[in-house]
Every structure is written in C-alpha cells, then in structure tokens.
C-alpha cells in the first residue's frame, strides 16, 4: 500500500502541545518593577474563564436527568451550511421532528444541541465556537454530511475546515451529502441513545482538552475580533 497521503502533516497521537505555539503557552514574566505577572495567552481569545469539567451527579439522578435530556433536545437554529435546508422539512408536517422531542431554539443559551449542517467557513467556525461555548452544559453536537467528516466537497478549499472534531467535540455523525431528513432523524435517535447511555459528555471533553481545541482553533482563526452579542 502506498504512503498515507496525510501522514506527515499531522499526527493525531500527540495532541497535547503540538499546535500551541511557544508564545501561546502559559508563562510567568517578571515586570521591570519585579512584579510577577502570570500570562495565559490563549485565555485572551475567548472566555473569561476556562470551561470546567462538571462531574455528573450520582448514578440514579444522572440517569433520570439524561433520560429527560435525551427526550428534550433543543436545537439551536443556526444554519451553518447546505444541510440547513433540510431543517424546515424536519420541522414541518412531513417529518415532524417535534414528536421525537426535537425543538428549535433561537438562542444558544437555551439550546442543548447544535447541528453543524455541513461545511464551516472560517468566519462561521468562529461564530460556531462562540455559540458552542455559550451553550450550557451538557451540550451535544450533531455533524451532518461529508464536509464535517473529512472536508467533503470542499476538501481543498482555503476557507472551509476539513474535520470538525478538531475544533469542537462531535457526538454523532450523519453521512451523506446532504443527508435526508430521515437520516437526520436517525441521527437524533442515535444521539438520544448516546445521551441515555451517559456517553454524550462532549462538554466535559471540551473542558478537559481545552488547550488542544483552542490551539487548533487558533491555528486557523487569525482575527478573533467579534462584535459583542453577535453569534
């Protein structure tokens, strides 16, 4: 078999510090007055505080809560790509996702899931990251279509990412370009299953590997300026 095309470019097994440039690593500097200043450069780019891992409550309670969470998935109405054209059919008579406990919310604060409906341009990725960080834990990510898996149609585009799982944790992938509403519903069913089994801990994963995610994000987003209250 021939040489792996992408082997030399990245190595998934060493995620820790690889993408964090030296200047982004936390360090302590001493000012001319002799004062010690602790600098955490990555922090400047998004949150006031790092996200924290919130351990699940005791088993029985968590199980009950997960059941409720699974049956009440509030999806953020953020159409990031082509796939969002299939959201209206999902919410209308033909497919009626409401009966699966799926509802749309217009603000990230109230949403528990986000559908990344396809390719993400860098400009949108920036908003998606902000939106994702604004969503309260536990939060779930449903990735639609080839584009989120390995770049899809836009694998060689200079403005779209190739794989979503480097920037935010993904719970369920739905294959297709674009997936039909039925496939999306199947995605929701799978997501529910995952939540009920207590495996959908994307938010905690994000908090744990925060530096890695942030490093990846920072590698491609050059301009972190964003207006307040713009998702």
């Amino acid at each position, binding site marked *: 078999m021939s040489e792996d095309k992408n082997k030399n470019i990245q190595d998934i097994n060493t995620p820790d510090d690889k993408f964090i440039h030296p200047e982004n690593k936390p360090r302590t500097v001493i000012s001319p007055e002799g004062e010690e200043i602790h600098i955490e450069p990555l922090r400047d780019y998004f949150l006031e505080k790092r996200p924290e891992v919130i351990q699940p409550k005791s088993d029985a309670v968590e199980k009950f809560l997960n059941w409720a969470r699974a049956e009440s998935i509030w999806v953020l109405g953020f159409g990031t790509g082509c796939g969002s054209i299939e959201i209206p059919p999902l919410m209308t008579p033909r497919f009626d996702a409401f009966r699966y406990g799926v509802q749309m919310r217009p603000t990230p604060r109230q949403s528990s899931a986000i559908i990344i409906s396809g390719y993400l341009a860098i400009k949108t990725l920036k908003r998606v990251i902000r939106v994702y960080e604004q969503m309260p834990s536990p939060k779930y990510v449903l990735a639609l279509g080839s584009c989120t898996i390995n*770049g*899809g149609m836009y694998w060689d585009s200079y403005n779209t990412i190739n794989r979503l799982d480097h920037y935010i944790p993904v719970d369920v992938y739905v294959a297709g370009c674009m997936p039909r509403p039925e496939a999306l519903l199947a995605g929701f069913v799978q997501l529910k299953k995952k939540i009920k089994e207590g495996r959908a801990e994307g938010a905690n994963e994000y908090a744990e590997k925060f530096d890695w995610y942030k490093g990846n994000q920072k590698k491609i987003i050059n301009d972190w300026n964003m207006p307040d209250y713009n998702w």
Partner: protein
Amino acid sequence: MALKDILTPFTAWTNVFKPVVTIKDPFNDRPGAERYRGFHFNDTSKCIGCGSCEAICENEAIDLVPVEGIETKDGDSGLRPRVDYGRCCWCALCVDVCTTASLRLTNEYTWVTENPEDLRYTPGVDVKPWDNNELGWKKPEPNYHFFGQKRVSMPELHPEQRDKSFIEIVKGYSKEQAILEADRCVECGICIATCPAHMGIPDYIRAIREDNIEEGFKILYDTNPLPEICGRICTHKCETVCSVGNLGEALSIRWLKRYIADQVESEDYKRILQSDGIANNGKKVAVVGSGPAGLSAAHYLALMGYSVTIYEQFSQSGGMMRYGIPEYRLPYDQIDKDVNYILSLGVKIIYNTNVGKDISLSELKSKYDAVFAGTGLHLGRSTRIPGTDHKHVYQSIDLLNKITEGKEIHVAENIVVIGGGNVAMDITRSLARLQNIKYGKVSIIATSLEDENSMPADREEVVEAREEMATINPGWGPKEILIEDGNIKGLRVVKCLSIFDEEGRFNPKFDESNTNFFKADMIVESIGQGMDIEYISEDIKKDLEINNRGRIVVDELFQSGAKWLFIGGDIIQGPDVIHGIANGHKAAVGIDKYLNTNI
C-alpha cells in the same frame, strides 16, 4: 379594513379536521426512490480496479486499495475502490464513468455513527446492510456515455478490392480519427501489465490526443523499436484487457501505435529520438537472427554503445515478420523503415549466413563478447494423420516463405487448411488470393480443433477471411487425408468436443459419430511451429538446461546456462512479435549487465 379580511384567515382552521400527513415511521416507510443516489455498492467480481472512478471523483473520495482474495492478474489490477464518506458528494459520476458497470449507488441513505473513522469502506467487500439492495442509481439509459463506446472504424480496402492483391488492407487512421479514438482512453494503465513489453500505452495515447506525435514516438521507442511492425501485426493483448472494452469496444491501441509511427518520416527518426553520436564502448555482440527479438536486442545494445552484428540466414531482414506474415498485413517497406533505423545506429547485418552451417556458434563466441540468439520457430509441425506424407500436403510456414521470396508455389483448386491460428488465417487468405488470381474463384476451407469462439486467431482475421470468400469451419479434428490414385481427394474430420482434459493437458476428445468431409486437392498444415536448435553444438548444449517440454531454460534476463549466450524470442516465449521485442530488450539489458560485471 374590510371585515372579510379579518374573517377569511380563519379558514385555516378547517385543517384541524383533515388527516395528518406526517410519515408515521420515517425510517422504514420511505425508501429512497428507484433512482436514488445513496451509498455505494461494488460488484467486486465484475470490477477490474481500473480507477476511472478515482479519476473522475472531484473530491478525491475514492482510493484504490488491495483487497484480500482478489488477485492481480491480466486485466484486473486486484485493486478495488474504497469510498470515504467524509468526501463523497453522491454525484454518482463514478457510477456513470465505471468501465464495467460494477459500481452503483443503492437507494439506502441512512448511516449514522459516532466514530467518523467508520465512514470509509470498500463497497462490495466490507459487508453493509445495503449490499443486497437492487434499487438505486445505475448508469442512465439510453445512449448516455462519458466516453465513446464504439471504435472509430478503421478505413479498409473493400473485399473486392483486396481479394486479388497483396496490397495492405488497413489504411491507417487520419489525424482526426486517431484523436477521436485516442480520446476514448480512460488512462487506467491496466493494459501495460498485459503488454509483454510493458509499453507506456496511456502515455502515447495521451500524446496522440494532444497531437504531440514526437513525444508519443519517443514513448514508443522506450520499449519497442519496431513500432511500424507492431502497429500492424501485434497480437495486441493489451486490447483484450482494455477497460473500455468491458462495456463498449476496446481501444484500437495497435492502430494508434501505427498512427504515431506512420506520422514520422524515416529521416526524422534520429532527430526525434536523439540517437546521434552514441559513444561506442568497444565491445562487440553478435545476434543470431534478425527477427523481432534479434532486432530489438540489437537496437538496445546499439543504444548502449555496443557494436552489434546480426547474422541472418535469409537474404532479407525481419525473420518471421517478413517471411511468415503476408504482405497485405505487413508491407515490406514498413519492415524496412523500422530496420533501417536500427541499422542507422551502427548495427550490421550479415545476410545469407546460417549460423550453425555457414558459421558456427563457437566461432561467434570467440569473435564476440556475447551472443544473443533469437532464432525463432521455423519448423512446421505436422498433424501426423494418415496421408500427411503426400507431396501436396504442405507446411504453411514453407508456403509463406516462398510467397515472400516470390517463388512459384502450387495452388490447387480446392484447398483445406488445418489450423485455427493467425498463421492458418494468413496462409488461408494468401492462398485465397492466389486462387482468385489463378482461377478467378476461391475454394478454401480452414478448419481447426477449436470451435468458433475459442479459435486462437484474431477475430478480425476470421471475419476478413470470410469476407474474402474463404470458408472457416472450425470445431473439427482431422482424421485422415483421403488419397485416391495418388491424388488428394479431401480431408475427413470428426467433431471435436473438447481439447484439453481436466488437468489442462492437450488431450482432444472427439464425437466419432459426427464426421465431415472436406473436399480438397491440396492440404496445408498450420498447427504450429517448432524450434530448430541444431546450430547449438553439443559442447555448448551441455551447458544449457533444457526442460521437460523441450525448451531451453533461461533466466529472467534471458541468459542461458552458457553465460555468454543469451537466448530469446519465439523459442523461449511466444510465438509473437511483441514477446520477441520484450525478450530482446531484456536480453540487451542482461548482456550489458553481463559484460560490465562478468557474471
């Protein structure tokens, strides 16, 4: 502000009493449409791993990977497409372009996973739930093709024009025709492995398409110093595996090669091939026989700087190409064109010198640093049925020799040719012409053991022979030549049921009850030729290893047991031109290696 405008909207509420239109079970109630483009399925037994799907995929979603249990063989690369659903966009161009119609998209469309690495699989190999789903996207009908399915028809002489003369039948492509034909190539490269000389077929076809004849010509000479000859009479094994041929007609690779060679004038050869001023390295090599193997070896040796001398038993070069193949297939001036170029590289030919009679092999050994023997198969084989010793029972090879040399031969009114190979067709058609000239009519029957579908002769040879009014009646085993009063009356044959036994050995079975009789005054046997290695004297022979089938054993560089003697061509492999060329080339490399490292 009409009251009506307030009240009419309330008609919407009538919907409350209408039935719900929601699909009850969206996962099962609604399979994709009959043509839906869902996930891939590949019929791996039909697939040949040509990679057209990979070439057309704009997303680089398809990789060709080796698959366990599928062997690489002629016409099948052993690779199978693997689809990355992180790339696929369901456009189904891969299905439309598929050269074997093995790939299709099923109408299954739901695939949900938590692990993105799952979304990559080899359709038809990795078992998926939709493997047995017959619906889905297949190549559309009618007349929907991504490349020409039909060959550009080759201009030929009409049977009436050709059946009395030995003028070349095939006229050759014009530029437009050649480009059109070259356009059909999908550049898979499967043909290369099948070609004994491993010619860069897709590359020179691309050169034709781009109208870059000189580039194409250079590519030809990389592996084949006899393009004019090969372009006419090559057995074109490449075309039998051409991936385009799976659904449509295979590319006329041979004619395209001929097209390139035809476009280049003799005087341009040296300029294009940049073969002027090769430094002589002072070593000398003798080549026995100026057939394809000999000429090929001489050519590549000359390019490496050796002084090459060819010993030829006949008065003209070319060996079997000239003396075995009728002129209407391969005009002699084309042989000369190729040979003259090789001679222009400094190769000398000594004609009318039979090694073994006029000069001994040991003498060559002493005069030269190495010897390459490509002496070919010049002994006709006989069926050895009763009556073959009659004077009007001929060997086809002898007749063809005589026709080439312009000697008078016996042409009877009714002739039967025994044999179904290309040589049999050659003699059949040559004799048909002579009959036509002599008697104004054709009465010749060619018969063979093999039935119509498994005759070793090229299909077009059979068709053309029939066009020239020869009768081809295959599937019969010769039993006896009936001779009355010293004159041949005909050939008695019985139906042949099978040729090889279960172990693949030659062991024909006949249906003795089903007999036939072909009336004839003259019988020509053309069931193959044998080699004549009398010229190798006993002291040399004792170094050689000869296997149980009577063939001389050589290594992969055609070096025989006697280190200085390289043997190639029909006596080793074949018989055909392209094997000879390949052997000659390899032997040239072998000689070079031998003389430089003395192993």
